[in-house]
């Protein structure tokens, strides 16, 4: 008798709460989209030139490399680690592959393979130090940041790669398009979709979240923690390598200091995108949107003729806002869930 009367209402309640949960979980991606739309609308209202085809394309081109790095960083951050070396890897790869193709008149394929190899190797070193030696990620990748930067300067020796020496096929990759859609954003979106799908739908993908959510529980559940953390760093390294090649493809002219300081930009994009810095939470979609938002803000400030030094301050403020919102949401969420327990208790 009681079962008859309680079952439907319980189901209805569960359904309502589920949609509430879903909403809270998706809130981050939605709110970034919302901020983006408002930002673009307001700027376009002030300066209609902002929404020109060229302007929009520039934003997407500029956001693509940052988004790729943010996707790799997401992998690392959800396992409760961090990769600060990505900026240096981009710089090194851009220069070395540029050197390679300009000196030997090499092909685009060679550049891509070399870039991925260098990036992957850097990721492997980071991953081994963090996962096998148990050194805190912050220290390890801070160290490799400087080592790789030093390597970059050593290789460059004050020289510069000129666009004229870079094969046309590679430059086309940076500025060309297919059916009006430029390659760069297309690559970023494809990588985002693939990685996002993997992380959500594959058992091994979920294990990255498990490790970040509770390392102790992951250990007891038999999750291969070392292997996954290593994988996360290798993926981050590979994507940084790809980012380096695309950097060369997009700008052509490369010096040793390229992408200097980008690691912090990448981490900002990831955190703004809703990936919890303590691990376990977040998606690559959010991270990529975060990258797009940061890039858009940069362009908006230029269009609105705001002094460029405000850009960093604004990004910092956004970061603080994002973290505060996260904290607030988490507290609310905990309260909702706890209240639900109280109702369940009999």
């Amino acid at each position, binding site marked *: 008798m009681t079962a008859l009367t309680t079952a439907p209402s319980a189901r209805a309640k569960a359904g309502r709460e*589920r949609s509430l949960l879903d909403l809270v979980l998706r809130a981050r991606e939605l709110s970034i989209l919302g901020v983006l739309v408002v930002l673009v609308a307001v700027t376009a209202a002030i300066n209609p030139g902002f929404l020109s085809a060229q302007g929009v394309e520039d934003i997407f081109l500029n956001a693509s490399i940052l988004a790729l790095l943010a996707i790799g960083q997401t992998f690392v951050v959800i396992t409760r680690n961090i990769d600060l070396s990505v900026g240096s890897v981009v710089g090194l790869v851009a220069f070395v592959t540029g050197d390679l193709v300009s000196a030997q008149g090499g092909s685009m394929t060679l550049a891509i393979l070399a870039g991925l190899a260098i990036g992957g190797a850097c990721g492997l070193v980071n991953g081994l130090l963090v996962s096998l030696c148990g050194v805190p990620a912050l220290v390890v990748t801070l160290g490799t940041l400087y080592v790789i930067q030093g390597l970059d300067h050593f290789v460059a020796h004050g020289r510069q790669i000129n666009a004229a020496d870079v094969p046309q096929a590679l430059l086309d990759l940076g500025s060309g398009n297919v059916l009006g859609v430029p390659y760069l954003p297309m690559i970023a979106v494809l990588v985002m979709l693939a990685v996002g799908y993997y992380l959500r*739908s594959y058992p091994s993908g*979920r294990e990255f979240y498990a490790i*970040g*959510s*509770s390392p102790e529980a992951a250990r007891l559940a*038999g999750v*291969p923690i070392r292997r996954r953390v290593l994988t996360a760093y290798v993926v981050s390294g590979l994507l940084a390598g790809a980012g380096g090649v695309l950097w060369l493809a997009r700008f052509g002219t490369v010096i040793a200091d390229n992408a200097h300081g980008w690691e912090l930009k990448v981490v900002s994009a990831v955190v703004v995108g809703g990936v919890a810095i303590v691990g*376990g939470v977040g998606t690559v979609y959010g991270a990529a949107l975060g990258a797009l938002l940061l890039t858009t803000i940069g362009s908006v400030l230029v269009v609105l003729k705001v002094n460029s030094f405000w850009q960093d301050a604004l990004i910092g403020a956004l970061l603080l806002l994002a973290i505060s919102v996260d904290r607030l949401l988490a507290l609310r969420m905990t309260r909702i*869930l706890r209240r639900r327990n109280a109702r369940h208790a009999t």
Partner: protein
Amino acid sequence: MSEPAPVLALVEVSKAFGAVRALTGVSLELRAGEVHALAGENGAGKSTLVKTFAGVHRPDSGRILLDGEPVVFHGPADAQHAGIAVIYQEPTLFPDLSVAENIFMGRQPRAALGRIDRRTMHARAAELFARLGVTLDPRRPARGLSIADQQVVEIAKAISRDAKVQIMDEPTAALTAQETARLFTVVRALREHGCALLFISHRLEEIFELCQRVTTLRDGRLVASEPVAGLTADDLVNRMVGRELDLYPKQDVAPGEVVLRVSRLTREGAFADVSFEVRRGEIVALAGLVGAGRTEVARAVFGIDRPDAGEVVVDGRRLRPASPIAAMAAGLALVPEDRRQQGLIMEMSIERNLGLTRLRALRRGPFISRALERAHARDWAVRFQLKYGRTDDAAGVLSGGNQQKLVLAKWLSTEPAVLIVDEPTRGIDVGTKAEVHRLLSELAAQGLAVLMISSDLPEVLAMADRILVMHEGRLTAELPGGEATEESVMTAATGRRGKDAA
């Protein structure tokens, strides 16, 4: 006519943590179709034994046999692959992942191309919950689950493994009577299926109801391994307690005036509306399950966490909230639960650790005097019969019991009016345990007010003049020490008042 080889066995296994010997030459055999109980007091080595089976700890000596063959587990994954499922005493879940993902992590049902089949996964989780008789939404995140629900998720995880060995470390500690009955039905079904089970519970009646064999540990040693049939509860208690050591030397004291008064103290999400008082000369125990909010109350009283409402009054004066300095000045002392993390600075010397609470008194001019510090340390080491090499040895080299004495000395040297001790005898050997009890009893007799948080029921019953019981953040009972029983305390602690009248 020999019996078939046990599914899983320990042979002469020993394990030590630093100077503490957790297991010494313990052997244990688990057979298919049998529920094997593991009995023993807190600190007898039960959890260490469980973690040895689970691959969390590797034995220092001795062997593990799987189907009669020696095996080495390098980690929990190895034990799982060997068909061993474990429910740990303290739930370890992924707070950010859904309940269903928590259950099936690493073993998710697959759809085409190796993707996770979420629908099947949720359906299977719901099925498990139905079997256990609880209503939990498989899709909700594990964050915010009550301890009881967390335990249910752990149980669901273990029984979903179809393991040939199930190890359950106090699975019923947080459950209601109904949930416990459901679990027993499931356990019996598993047994009939040919599963070998190891079952730990501090409730003796559960052992008699469910188990066929019982192994008793005491101080890390095997006392007996025998069929349950023919045993009485008294037999079992005798085996567990064994020696006629006076473990609980409690003096009778007529309590004096109220020193500590806590009224309507609330910290949202941790505890609510907690009021009690402690009198001079009294030992008041704060009992309850792990996670009931006892430690949080102690932290708020001592000013570590800021309460949302309520007040703490010491000697008639209202204490400034969220200020440990004010608490110390008013005469409070707190011996925390985790002495390695919170009680001591392990790398620092014994004398420095002891001096930390008395830095002002140990000054000569503006500087701390090493000589005074050393003299102070020697004095207290003698008073507490501390076993140490030199006072400038690191605190970390002491045994667990001596570390605990050091923490007690550190706080008693402030000459407090109220001493709050959180799990004062967890993980220390029986001899030191008796010493700590004698000390607390003497101090109370001299007029100290003691608030003792303890999960060790015999300790609570024997040492306390009054027992306060917490359940999910609220005080649910206040029992006079003389009249309380394990039953009455556990009933209040699990919040199942009146439910198990049958």
